[in-house]
Protein backbone atom coordinates (compact mmCIF):
# COMPACT_ATOMS: atom_id res chain seq x y z
CA UNK A 1 0.00 0.00 0.00
CA UNK A 2 1.32 3.39 -0.98
CA UNK A 3 1.19 6.50 1.22
CA UNK A 4 -1.50 9.14 0.61
CA UNK A 5 -0.35 12.17 -1.33
CA UNK A 6 -1.41 14.71 1.31
CA UNK A 7 -0.04 17.71 -0.57
CA UNK A 8 -2.14 16.80 -3.58
CA UNK A 9 -5.21 16.42 -1.37
CA UNK A 10 -4.72 19.78 0.33
CA UNK A 11 -4.21 21.43 -3.03
CA UNK A 12 -7.41 19.85 -4.32
CA UNK A 13 -9.59 21.20 -1.50
CA UNK A 14 -9.80 24.83 -2.76
CA UNK A 15 -10.36 23.60 -6.32
CA UNK A 16 -13.38 21.50 -5.33
CA UNK A 17 -14.61 24.14 -2.85
CA UNK A 18 -14.96 26.43 -5.85
CA UNK A 19 -17.78 24.17 -7.06
CA UNK A 20 -19.63 24.11 -3.72
CA UNK A 21 -21.76 27.16 -4.64
CA UNK A 22 -23.03 25.38 -7.77
CA UNK A 23 -23.82 22.19 -5.82
CA UNK A 24 -25.61 24.07 -3.03
CA UNK A 25 -27.29 26.35 -5.56
CA UNK A 26 -28.73 23.41 -7.50
CA UNK A 27 -29.90 21.74 -4.28
CA UNK A 28 -31.47 24.96 -2.95
CA UNK A 29 -33.27 25.69 -6.21
CA UNK A 30 -34.57 22.13 -6.39
CA UNK A 31 -35.55 22.21 -2.69
CA UNK A 32 -37.61 25.39 -3.10
CA UNK A 33 -39.30 23.95 -6.18
CA UNK A 34 -39.87 20.57 -4.55
CA UNK A 35 -41.30 22.13 -1.35
CA UNK A 36 -43.83 24.17 -3.31
CA UNK A 37 -44.83 21.30 -5.58
CA UNK A 38 -44.94 18.84 -2.68
CA UNK A 39 -47.09 21.14 -0.52
CA UNK A 40 -49.59 21.57 -3.35
CA UNK A 41 -49.70 17.82 -3.96
CA UNK A 42 -49.98 17.07 -0.24
CA UNK A 43 -52.92 19.45 0.20
CA UNK A 44 -54.52 17.93 -2.89
CA UNK A 45 -54.04 14.42 -1.49
CA UNK A 46 -55.77 15.49 1.73
CA UNK A 47 -58.76 17.25 0.15
CA UNK A 48 -58.83 14.89 -2.89
CA UNK A 49 -59.87 16.80 -5.98
CA UNK A 50 -61.41 14.31 -8.45
CA UNK A 51 -59.28 13.55 -11.57
CA UNK A 52 -56.42 15.72 -10.24
CA UNK A 53 -56.09 13.21 -7.40
CA UNK A 54 -55.52 10.31 -9.80
CA UNK A 55 -52.96 12.38 -11.68
CA UNK A 56 -51.09 13.27 -8.50
CA UNK A 57 -51.09 9.64 -7.37
CA UNK A 58 -49.67 8.56 -10.71
CA UNK A 59 -47.02 11.29 -10.55
CA UNK A 60 -45.94 10.27 -7.04
CA UNK A 61 -45.97 6.60 -7.97
CA UNK A 62 -43.76 7.15 -11.03
CA UNK A 63 -41.19 9.42 -9.42
CA UNK A 64 -40.89 7.21 -6.35
CA UNK A 65 -40.90 4.05 -8.41
CA UNK A 66 -38.03 4.78 -10.78
CA UNK A 67 -34.36 5.59 -10.07
CA UNK A 68 -33.33 9.25 -10.05
CA UNK A 69 -30.56 8.49 -12.55
CA UNK A 70 -33.08 7.01 -14.99
CA UNK A 71 -35.32 10.05 -14.56
CA UNK A 72 -32.44 12.43 -15.22
CA UNK A 73 -31.41 10.54 -18.38
CA UNK A 74 -34.99 10.33 -19.56
CA UNK A 75 -35.39 14.04 -19.01
CA UNK A 76 -32.05 15.25 -20.40
CA UNK A 77 -31.24 12.79 -23.18
CA UNK A 78 -34.66 11.34 -24.00
CA UNK A 79 -37.32 14.00 -23.74
CA UNK A 80 -35.72 16.55 -26.15
CA UNK A 81 -36.01 13.93 -28.92
CA UNK A 82 -39.79 13.88 -28.50
CA UNK A 83 -40.33 17.47 -27.42
CA UNK A 84 -38.06 19.68 -29.55
CA UNK A 85 -38.74 22.72 -27.30
CA UNK A 86 -36.50 21.05 -24.71
CA UNK A 87 -33.64 20.61 -27.16
CA UNK A 88 -31.58 23.56 -25.89
CA UNK A 89 -31.90 22.69 -22.17
CA UNK A 90 -28.61 22.80 -20.27
CA UNK A 91 -27.49 20.16 -17.78
CA UNK A 92 -27.88 22.37 -14.71
CA UNK A 93 -31.49 23.25 -15.51
CA UNK A 94 -32.29 19.65 -16.37
CA UNK A 95 -30.76 18.44 -13.10
CA UNK A 96 -32.68 21.02 -11.06
CA UNK A 97 -35.97 20.07 -12.71
CA UNK A 98 -35.23 16.36 -12.30
CA UNK A 99 -34.35 16.72 -8.62
CA UNK A 100 -37.43 18.88 -8.05
CA UNK A 101 -39.80 16.34 -9.55
CA UNK A 102 -38.12 13.35 -7.91
CA UNK A 103 -37.95 14.75 -4.39
CA UNK A 104 -41.36 16.45 -4.56
CA UNK A 105 -42.89 12.98 -4.85
CA UNK A 106 -41.28 11.84 -1.60
CA UNK A 107 -41.85 15.12 0.19
CA UNK A 108 -45.52 15.21 -0.79
CA UNK A 109 -46.08 12.00 1.13
CA UNK A 110 -44.29 13.30 4.27
CA UNK A 111 -46.19 16.57 4.17
CA UNK A 112 -49.47 14.73 3.65
CA UNK A 113 -48.76 12.53 6.66
CA UNK A 114 -47.83 15.63 8.69
CA UNK A 115 -51.10 17.37 7.75
CA UNK A 116 -53.03 14.30 8.84
CA UNK A 117 -50.95 14.26 12.03
CA UNK A 118 -52.26 17.66 13.14
CA UNK A 119 -54.97 17.11 15.74
CA UNK A 120 -58.46 17.15 14.28
CA UNK A 121 -59.59 19.62 16.92
CA UNK A 122 -57.34 22.24 15.28
CA UNK A 123 -59.44 21.97 12.10
CA UNK A 124 -62.64 22.24 14.09
CA UNK A 125 -61.44 25.29 16.01
CA UNK A 126 -60.47 27.04 12.77
CA UNK A 127 -63.82 26.18 11.17
CA UNK A 128 -65.73 27.24 14.28
CA UNK A 129 -64.32 30.78 14.24
CA UNK A 130 -65.48 31.06 10.62
CA UNK A 131 -62.27 30.51 8.67
CA UNK A 132 -62.54 29.19 5.13
CA UNK A 133 -60.88 25.87 4.26
CA UNK A 134 -57.97 27.71 2.67
CA UNK A 135 -57.49 30.00 5.67
CA UNK A 136 -57.63 27.05 8.07
CA UNK A 137 -55.07 25.15 6.04
CA UNK A 138 -52.68 28.05 5.54
CA UNK A 139 -52.82 29.69 8.96
CA UNK A 140 -53.46 26.82 11.38
CA UNK A 141 -52.84 23.40 9.85
CA UNK A 142 -49.80 23.88 7.58
CA UNK A 143 -47.66 25.71 10.20
CA UNK A 144 -48.23 22.83 12.61
CA UNK A 145 -47.65 20.27 9.86
CA UNK A 146 -44.37 22.02 9.01
CA UNK A 147 -43.13 21.37 12.52
CA UNK A 148 -44.00 17.69 12.25
CA UNK A 149 -42.49 17.36 8.76
CA UNK A 150 -39.35 19.46 9.35
CA UNK A 151 -36.92 16.68 10.39
CA UNK A 152 -37.92 14.51 7.43
CA UNK A 153 -37.76 17.42 5.00
CA UNK A 154 -34.26 18.36 6.14
CA UNK A 155 -33.26 14.73 5.59
CA UNK A 156 -34.54 14.98 2.03
CA UNK A 157 -32.54 18.18 1.56
CA UNK A 158 -29.41 16.37 2.71
CA UNK A 159 -30.20 13.57 0.31
CA UNK A 160 -30.77 16.15 -2.40
CA UNK A 161 -27.35 17.77 -1.89
CA UNK A 162 -25.69 14.41 -2.33
CA UNK A 163 -27.90 13.60 -5.32
CA UNK A 164 -26.70 16.72 -7.15
CA UNK A 165 -23.56 14.65 -7.81
CA UNK A 166 -25.63 12.80 -10.44
CA UNK A 167 -25.73 16.03 -12.47
CA UNK A 168 -22.18 15.09 -13.41
CA UNK A 169 -23.69 12.40 -15.63
CA UNK A 170 -25.47 15.19 -17.55
CA UNK A 171 -22.14 16.86 -18.22
CA UNK A 172 -22.39 19.39 -15.39
CA UNK A 173 -19.09 20.25 -13.73
CA UNK A 174 -20.17 20.43 -10.11
CA UNK A 175 -18.22 19.05 -7.12
CA UNK A 176 -18.27 15.47 -8.38
CA UNK A 177 -17.63 16.42 -12.01
CA UNK A 178 -14.69 18.63 -11.04
CA UNK A 179 -13.21 15.86 -8.91
CA UNK A 180 -13.55 13.36 -11.73
CA UNK A 181 -11.68 15.71 -14.06
CA UNK A 182 -8.93 16.34 -11.52
CA UNK A 183 -8.52 12.63 -10.81
CA UNK A 184 -8.38 11.78 -14.53
CA UNK A 185 -5.45 14.21 -14.85
CA UNK A 186 -3.49 13.06 -11.79
CA UNK A 187 -4.48 9.37 -11.64
CA UNK A 188 -4.74 9.84 -7.85
CA UNK A 189 -8.32 8.54 -7.73
CA UNK A 190 -8.33 7.55 -4.09
CA UNK A 191 -7.08 10.93 -2.89
CA UNK A 192 -9.42 12.88 -5.15
CA UNK A 193 -12.58 10.98 -4.24
CA UNK A 194 -11.64 10.94 -0.57
CA UNK A 195 -11.40 14.73 -0.62
CA UNK A 196 -14.78 15.15 -2.30
CA UNK A 197 -16.33 12.62 0.09
CA UNK A 198 -15.07 14.56 3.12
CA UNK A 199 -16.32 17.83 1.64
CA UNK A 200 -19.84 16.43 1.07
CA UNK A 201 -19.72 15.07 4.60
CA UNK A 202 -18.73 18.48 6.01
CA UNK A 203 -21.58 20.21 4.18
CA UNK A 204 -24.06 17.68 5.54
CA UNK A 205 -22.70 18.05 9.08
CA UNK A 206 -23.17 21.81 8.88
CA UNK A 207 -26.74 21.22 7.75
CA UNK A 208 -27.40 18.86 10.64
CA UNK A 209 -26.30 21.63 12.97
CA UNK A 210 -28.72 24.06 11.29
CA UNK A 211 -31.42 21.40 11.49
CA UNK A 212 -31.21 21.34 15.28
CA UNK A 213 -31.50 25.13 15.40
CA UNK A 214 -34.50 25.04 13.05
CA UNK A 215 -36.28 22.40 15.12
CA UNK A 216 -35.77 24.39 18.32
CA UNK A 217 -37.33 27.39 16.61
CA UNK A 218 -40.29 25.43 15.25
CA UNK A 219 -40.88 23.83 18.64
CA UNK A 220 -41.02 27.08 20.55
CA UNK A 221 -44.82 26.87 20.70
CA UNK A 222 -44.56 23.53 22.48
CA UNK A 223 -42.08 24.41 25.18
CA UNK A 224 -43.60 24.46 28.64
Amino acid at each position, binding site marked *: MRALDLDYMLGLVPVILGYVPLTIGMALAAMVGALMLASLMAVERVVRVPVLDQFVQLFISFFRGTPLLVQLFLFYYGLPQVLPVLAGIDGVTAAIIGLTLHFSAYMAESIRAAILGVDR*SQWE*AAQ*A*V*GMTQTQSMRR*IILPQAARIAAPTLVNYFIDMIKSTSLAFTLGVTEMMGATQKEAAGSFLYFEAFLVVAVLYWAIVEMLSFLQKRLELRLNK*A*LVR
Partner: protein
Amino acid sequence: MISIHGLTKRYGTNTVLDAIDLDIAAGERVAIIGPSGTGKSTLLRCLNYLDRPDSGVIRIGNLTVDAATARPADILALRRRTAFVFQNYSLFANKTARENITEALITVQRKPRAEAEARADAILREIGLADKAGAYPAALSGGQQQRIGIGRAMALDASLMLFDEPTSALDPEWVGEVLDLMRRVAERRQTMLIVTHEMQFAREIADRVIFMDGGRIVEQGPPTQIFDSPQDKRTESFLRRVR
Protein backbone atom coordinates in the same frame (compact mmCIF):
# COMPACT_ATOMS: atom_id res chain seq x y z
CA MET B 1 -83.94 35.52 17.83
CA ILE B 2 -82.73 32.04 17.05
CA SER B 3 -85.02 29.39 15.74
CA ILE B 4 -84.26 25.74 15.09
CA HIS B 5 -86.74 23.56 13.29
CA GLY B 6 -86.69 19.80 12.68
CA LEU B 7 -82.95 19.45 13.23
CA THR B 8 -82.05 15.81 12.62
CA LYS B 9 -78.74 13.97 12.61
CA ARG B 10 -78.20 10.28 11.95
CA TYR B 11 -75.12 8.11 12.06
CA GLY B 12 -76.06 5.13 9.92
CA THR B 13 -79.32 3.84 11.38
CA ASN B 14 -78.72 5.56 14.72
CA THR B 15 -80.73 8.79 15.05
CA VAL B 16 -78.69 11.04 17.33
CA LEU B 17 -80.87 14.12 16.93
CA ASP B 18 -84.54 13.50 16.29
CA ALA B 19 -86.25 16.52 14.73
CA ILE B 20 -85.30 19.06 17.37
CA ASP B 21 -87.41 22.24 17.52
CA LEU B 22 -86.05 25.05 19.66
CA ASP B 23 -86.44 28.84 19.83
CA ILE B 24 -84.01 30.97 21.78
CA ALA B 25 -84.70 34.63 22.50
CA ALA B 26 -81.95 37.22 22.19
CA GLY B 27 -80.14 37.45 25.49
CA GLU B 28 -81.53 34.16 26.73
CA ARG B 29 -79.22 31.77 28.56
CA VAL B 30 -80.16 28.16 27.99
CA ALA B 31 -78.56 25.16 29.69
CA ILE B 32 -78.86 21.66 28.22
CA ILE B 33 -78.56 18.72 30.58
CA GLY B 34 -79.05 15.01 30.15
CA PRO B 35 -77.31 11.62 30.14
CA SER B 36 -74.21 11.00 28.02
CA GLY B 37 -74.78 10.08 24.39
CA THR B 38 -78.19 11.71 24.11
CA GLY B 39 -77.21 14.18 21.42
CA LYS B 40 -76.48 17.29 23.52
CA SER B 41 -73.06 17.89 21.99
CA THR B 42 -74.29 16.84 18.55
CA LEU B 43 -77.00 19.48 18.78
CA LEU B 44 -74.38 22.15 19.46
CA ARG B 45 -72.07 20.86 16.73
CA CYS B 46 -74.93 20.80 14.21
CA LEU B 47 -75.80 24.41 15.05
CA ASN B 48 -72.52 25.59 13.47
CA TYR B 49 -72.20 22.67 11.05
CA LEU B 50 -69.10 21.16 12.65
CA ASP B 51 -71.35 18.16 12.13
CA ARG B 52 -73.64 18.57 9.17
CA PRO B 53 -77.26 17.83 10.09
CA ASP B 54 -79.20 15.53 7.77
CA SER B 55 -82.20 17.83 7.78
CA GLY B 56 -83.61 20.83 9.56
CA VAL B 57 -83.57 24.60 9.38
CA ILE B 58 -81.54 26.99 11.53
CA ARG B 59 -82.46 30.66 11.63
CA ILE B 60 -80.28 33.28 13.29
CA GLY B 61 -81.60 36.80 12.79
CA ASN B 62 -82.08 37.23 9.04
CA LEU B 63 -79.92 34.23 8.12
CA THR B 64 -81.65 30.96 7.27
CA VAL B 65 -79.70 27.77 6.69
CA ASP B 66 -81.56 24.68 5.54
CA ALA B 67 -79.62 21.40 5.65
CA ALA B 68 -81.23 20.38 2.36
CA THR B 69 -79.74 23.29 0.46
CA ALA B 70 -76.86 24.62 2.60
CA ARG B 71 -73.87 25.65 0.49
CA PRO B 72 -70.38 26.40 1.86
CA ALA B 73 -71.13 30.14 1.86
CA ASP B 74 -74.23 29.58 4.04
CA ILE B 75 -72.21 27.46 6.45
CA LEU B 76 -69.51 30.13 6.72
CA ALA B 77 -72.17 32.78 7.37
CA LEU B 78 -73.67 30.60 10.10
CA ARG B 79 -70.30 30.04 11.74
CA ARG B 80 -69.61 33.75 11.67
CA ARG B 81 -72.72 34.39 13.76
CA THR B 82 -71.90 31.77 16.35
CA ALA B 83 -68.95 31.23 18.66
CA PHE B 84 -67.96 27.84 20.03
CA VAL B 85 -66.23 26.89 23.26
CA PHE B 86 -64.80 23.38 23.11
CA GLN B 87 -64.60 20.80 25.86
CA ASN B 88 -60.89 20.26 25.15
CA TYR B 89 -60.26 24.04 24.65
CA SER B 90 -58.87 23.51 21.10
CA LEU B 91 -56.74 26.62 21.18
CA PHE B 92 -54.62 27.10 18.07
CA ALA B 93 -51.43 25.35 19.17
CA ASN B 94 -49.20 27.44 16.91
CA LYS B 95 -50.53 30.78 18.19
CA THR B 96 -49.96 32.66 21.43
CA ALA B 97 -52.83 33.43 23.80
CA ARG B 98 -53.17 36.88 22.26
CA GLU B 99 -52.95 35.56 18.68
CA ASN B 100 -55.64 33.00 19.48
CA ILE B 101 -57.97 35.93 20.10
CA THR B 102 -56.81 38.19 17.24
CA GLU B 103 -56.65 35.42 14.61
CA ALA B 104 -60.32 35.37 13.60
CA LEU B 105 -60.72 39.11 14.09
CA ILE B 106 -58.03 39.67 11.46
CA THR B 107 -58.59 36.79 9.02
CA VAL B 108 -62.37 36.41 9.28
CA GLN B 109 -63.70 39.78 10.38
CA ARG B 110 -61.01 41.71 8.47
CA LYS B 111 -60.38 44.11 11.35
CA PRO B 112 -57.18 46.17 11.20
CA ARG B 113 -54.40 44.50 13.21
CA ALA B 114 -54.14 47.35 15.73
CA GLU B 115 -57.86 47.21 16.46
CA ALA B 116 -57.80 43.42 16.82
CA GLU B 117 -54.86 43.60 19.19
CA ALA B 118 -56.49 46.30 21.30
CA ARG B 119 -59.58 44.12 21.54
CA ALA B 120 -57.49 41.07 22.47
CA ASP B 121 -55.65 42.99 25.17
CA ALA B 122 -58.94 44.24 26.63
CA ILE B 123 -60.27 40.68 26.72
CA LEU B 124 -57.06 39.30 28.21
CA ARG B 125 -57.36 41.84 31.03
CA GLU B 126 -60.99 40.95 31.51
CA ILE B 127 -60.29 37.23 31.79
CA GLY B 128 -57.34 37.95 34.07
CA LEU B 129 -54.64 36.66 31.74
CA ALA B 130 -53.00 39.87 30.55
CA ASP B 131 -49.65 38.54 31.78
CA LYS B 132 -50.02 35.43 29.59
CA ALA B 133 -50.56 37.31 26.30
CA GLY B 134 -47.38 35.93 24.74
CA ALA B 135 -47.68 32.40 26.13
CA TYR B 136 -48.38 29.43 23.87
CA PRO B 137 -51.24 27.10 24.88
CA ALA B 138 -48.84 24.29 25.83
CA ALA B 139 -47.44 26.51 28.58
CA LEU B 140 -50.85 27.24 30.14
CA SER B 141 -52.92 25.30 32.67
CA GLY B 142 -56.23 23.74 31.61
CA GLY B 143 -58.16 26.49 33.35
CA GLN B 144 -56.09 29.21 31.69
CA GLN B 145 -56.50 27.56 28.28
CA GLN B 146 -60.27 27.35 28.66
CA ARG B 147 -60.44 31.01 29.76
CA ILE B 148 -58.56 31.90 26.55
CA GLY B 149 -61.00 29.64 24.67
CA ILE B 150 -63.89 31.63 26.12
CA GLY B 151 -62.04 34.90 25.45
CA ARG B 152 -61.56 33.88 21.82
CA ALA B 153 -65.31 33.24 21.57
CA MET B 154 -66.19 36.52 23.36
CA ALA B 155 -64.07 38.52 20.91
CA LEU B 156 -66.20 37.39 17.98
CA ASP B 157 -69.30 39.28 19.22
CA ALA B 158 -71.41 36.36 18.02
CA SER B 159 -75.20 36.32 18.13
CA LEU B 160 -75.01 32.95 19.86
CA MET B 161 -72.30 31.46 22.05
CA LEU B 162 -72.20 27.67 22.20
CA PHE B 163 -70.49 25.95 25.14
CA ASP B 164 -69.81 22.24 24.76
CA GLU B 165 -69.20 20.90 28.28
CA PRO B 166 -66.59 23.60 28.88
CA THR B 167 -65.52 22.29 32.29
CA SER B 168 -65.71 18.53 31.72
CA ALA B 169 -62.05 18.09 30.73
CA LEU B 170 -60.73 20.28 33.54
CA ASP B 171 -59.04 19.19 36.74
CA PRO B 172 -61.38 20.06 39.61
CA GLU B 173 -59.09 22.85 40.77
CA TRP B 174 -59.66 24.83 37.54
CA VAL B 175 -63.45 24.41 37.25
CA GLY B 176 -64.26 27.36 39.52
CA GLU B 177 -62.35 29.99 37.55
CA VAL B 178 -63.94 28.90 34.27
CA LEU B 179 -67.46 28.93 35.73
CA ASP B 180 -66.78 32.38 37.20
CA LEU B 181 -65.86 33.67 33.77
CA MET B 182 -68.95 32.13 32.18
CA ARG B 183 -71.05 33.73 34.90
CA ARG B 184 -69.62 37.12 33.92
CA VAL B 185 -70.42 36.46 30.25
CA ALA B 186 -73.96 35.49 31.26
CA GLU B 187 -74.41 38.68 33.26
CA ARG B 188 -74.10 40.65 30.00
CA ARG B 189 -77.15 38.90 28.63
CA GLN B 190 -75.10 37.27 25.92
CA THR B 191 -77.25 34.63 24.21
CA MET B 192 -75.77 31.34 25.38
CA LEU B 193 -76.48 27.68 24.81
CA ILE B 194 -74.55 25.61 27.33
CA VAL B 195 -74.21 21.85 27.48
CA THR B 196 -73.11 21.13 31.03
CA HIS B 197 -72.94 18.64 33.84
CA GLU B 198 -72.62 21.44 36.42
CA MET B 199 -76.19 21.37 37.74
CA GLN B 200 -75.69 24.05 40.39
CA PHE B 201 -74.21 26.35 37.77
CA ALA B 202 -77.09 25.71 35.36
CA ARG B 203 -79.61 26.47 38.08
CA GLU B 204 -77.81 29.68 38.92
CA ILE B 205 -77.29 31.31 35.52
CA ALA B 206 -79.80 29.73 33.10
CA ASP B 207 -83.09 31.35 32.17
CA ARG B 208 -84.19 27.97 30.87
CA VAL B 209 -83.04 24.42 31.34
CA ILE B 210 -83.54 21.76 28.70
CA PHE B 211 -83.42 18.07 29.53
CA MET B 212 -82.49 15.88 26.55
CA ASP B 213 -82.67 12.13 26.25
CA GLY B 214 -82.54 9.85 23.20
CA GLY B 215 -81.98 12.68 20.74
CA ARG B 216 -85.09 14.58 21.82
CA ILE B 217 -86.00 17.41 24.14
CA VAL B 218 -87.89 15.64 26.91
CA GLU B 219 -88.66 18.58 29.12
CA GLN B 220 -87.78 22.26 29.43
CA GLY B 221 -88.55 25.17 31.68
CA PRO B 222 -87.15 27.56 34.25
CA PRO B 223 -84.39 26.02 36.43
CA THR B 224 -86.58 25.88 39.53
CA GLN B 225 -89.21 23.89 37.67
CA ILE B 226 -86.78 21.40 36.10
CA PHE B 227 -84.64 20.89 39.17
CA ASP B 228 -87.30 21.07 41.89
CA SER B 229 -90.39 19.61 40.28
CA PRO B 230 -89.50 17.71 37.08
CA GLN B 231 -92.57 16.48 35.24
CA ASP B 232 -91.03 13.60 33.32
CA LYS B 233 -89.83 10.38 34.97
CA ARG B 234 -86.59 10.38 32.92
CA THR B 235 -85.71 13.88 34.10
CA GLU B 236 -86.44 12.92 37.65
CA SER B 237 -84.34 9.75 37.55
CA PHE B 238 -81.44 11.54 35.81
CA LEU B 239 -81.39 14.32 38.40
CA ARG B 240 -81.50 11.79 41.22
CA ARG B 241 -78.46 10.06 39.77
CA VAL B 242 -76.34 13.18 39.28
CA ARG B 243 -77.09 14.65 42.69
